[in-house]
């Protein structure tokens, strides 16, 4: 009943649909924040508007990247489409769609927090908008990673592909697809608190800037591990003769790292949120709070690293 054509067109449509839902929600949250804070502080309407134009443009880029991936699927349709080909390609494009959905919703919250922060301190608008641009582009980075995985999957698709290999490639896409959800949520929680804290205590901007870059690097580690495992599945497994065991290994490794990184990434975001709130109240305690956050981050991240270790052992063993 499910034909190759249906899988092919359905995946492209579904991916764009999912991504559009996420982008719509994100844009809606950002627009709501923009209007609300302009109403609350009408004198700051001009800087809020010029900042939000950039913010909305970055938000929109998620949907555009998914559009590129979907168009590549639609126009790259081979003449004799087999089931395996359609299945593997569907995974790649769905990964881009889901990742862009979560990342867009996450960065929508940050855009709203930015608008509120500018309404609080309009004279500091340029620094806050720089902060927002860096934050948003870091949160949207997983979309680029998913696009990379999608491109790599597409280079490995051949007409005479076995079902085992197709399932392994689909697992690689699923790895980055599910693995990006946790870090997106964590980064959203943390960045929302960081931008709000900059608005509350703008004199400590430099300290917040370094602190949040370190925290982003911590949370982004989970995504990078997912990317490495996905690329390992794509590049190492097809070299081996594909049996059902290799497909199973690929699926297990993908599940290990993608599910294993979710909890840790959200926990890191929560820790960072609390320390940002504390620092906004009392900047003199910066050194102690930053050190404690870093140490707890290291211990939380150990769980992600164990998942990564097991995933790598599964693939290579």
């Amino acid at each position, binding site marked *: 009943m499910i034909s190759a054509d249906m899988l092919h067109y359905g995946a492209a449509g579904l991916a764009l649909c999912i991504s559009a839902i996420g982008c719509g929600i994100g844009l809606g949250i950002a627009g709501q924040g923009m209007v609300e804070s302009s109403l609350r502080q009408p004198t700051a309407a001009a800087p809020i508007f010029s900042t939000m134009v950039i913010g909305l443009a970055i938000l929109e880029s998620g949907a555009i990247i998914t559009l590129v991936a979907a168009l590549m699927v639609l126009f790259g349709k081979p003449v004799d489409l087999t089931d395996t080909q359609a299945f593997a390609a569907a995974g790649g494009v769905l990964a881009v769609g889901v990742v862009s959905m979560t990342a867009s919703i996450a960065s929508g919250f940050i855009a709203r927090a930015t608008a509120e922060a500018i309404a609080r301190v309009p004279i500091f608008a340029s620094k806050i908008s720089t902060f927002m641009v860096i934050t948003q582009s870091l949160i949207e980075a997983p979309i680029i990673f998913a696009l990379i995985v999608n491109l790599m999957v597409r280079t490995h698709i051949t007409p005479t592909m076995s079902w085992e290999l197709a399932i392994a490639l689909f697992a690689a896409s699923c790895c980055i697809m599910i693995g990006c959800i946790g870090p997106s949520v964590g980064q959203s929680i943390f960045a929302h608190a960081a931008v709000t804290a900059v608005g509350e205590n703008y004199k400590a901007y430099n300290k917040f800037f370094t602190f949040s870059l370190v925290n982003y690097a911590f949370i982004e580690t989970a995504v*990078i591990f997912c990317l490495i495992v996905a690329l390992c599945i794509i590049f190492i497994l097809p070299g081996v003769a594909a049996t059902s065991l290799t497909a199973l290994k690929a699926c297990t490794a993908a599940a290990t790292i993608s599910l294993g990184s979710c909890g840790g990434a959200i926990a890191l975001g929560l820790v960072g949120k609390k320390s940002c709130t504390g620092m906004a109240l009392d900047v003199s305690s910066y050194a102690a709070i930053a050190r404690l956050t870093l140490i707890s981050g290291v211990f939380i991240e150990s769980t992600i690293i164990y998942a990564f270790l097991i995933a790598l052992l599964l693939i290579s063993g």
Partner: protein
Amino acid sequence: MSAGLFHYHSVQPLADLGLTGPFWTVHSDIVIGTWVAMAILFSLTALGQYFLGKKNNTVTFLYEKAVDFFINLSIDNIGSFQQKYFLFISSIFLFTAFSCLVGLIPFVEEATRDLNTALAIALSSFLYVQYQKIQLHGFRGFLQEFIDPFIIMAPLHVVGELSKIASMSFRLFGNIVGGGVILGMVIDLFGRYRMFVTPVIFCSIAIHMLFRYIDYQHSFWLRVIQKIVQLTLNMLFALTWLQIILGIGEAMMQSFVLTMLTATYLGMAMQHGGDQHPNTPKHLPKEHL
């Protein structure tokens, strides 16, 4: 780059003797990367030796700032200043950071792209901490720690110690490989000119920063150079930021985390067992250095 994710050029120097296992294989580009990092470090040390004899010098000031940073790091994490811990902590930071940063030089690979280097760094940090534990508390005290509440906990303690090595080495290795893969994929878009991308970007940044202090408005050629540099940086805007975040930021960040972890473990090792050892020097003020 992307195709050979874990592919290294390898040499088997003892193949004539029949020793051809993975243990006897040397990853040549990784070794070259380590040597380049060490050469840079040695030349920086020699430069420091030369400049520290002089007074009121910018370079001297920078070196003193760097040393101050490490002193603060060790005091913050260990609780007191000790010369040997300070030396170990600063050297582990410098070696890790430069092993990651040599990847920016064309034709040289990051030394930490290989799990072996990351494992070696993590192992040396781990073994040093264990050695210090034995020195401070004696061998009996060292063993006592493993059966702390009661003897059933011993396997848990052993696994806990071993997992420190795994998490330290894999954190460094995974982050550097991930950053390298993403950068490599973007740079591969330049085809056969990819070797020149990184030097061009960093030279442009350097010239751009230099032009802040130079009066270039009066010279035609300087203005042309300034325009070209600005155009390059504008065109490669995204790649420049990617290089700065993934190339430099990730390396500094990971080596800082590794160093801080080592210092924290050292501090925990010293505080273990209640009272401090009588031989431990008390907190030294910074002026005494």
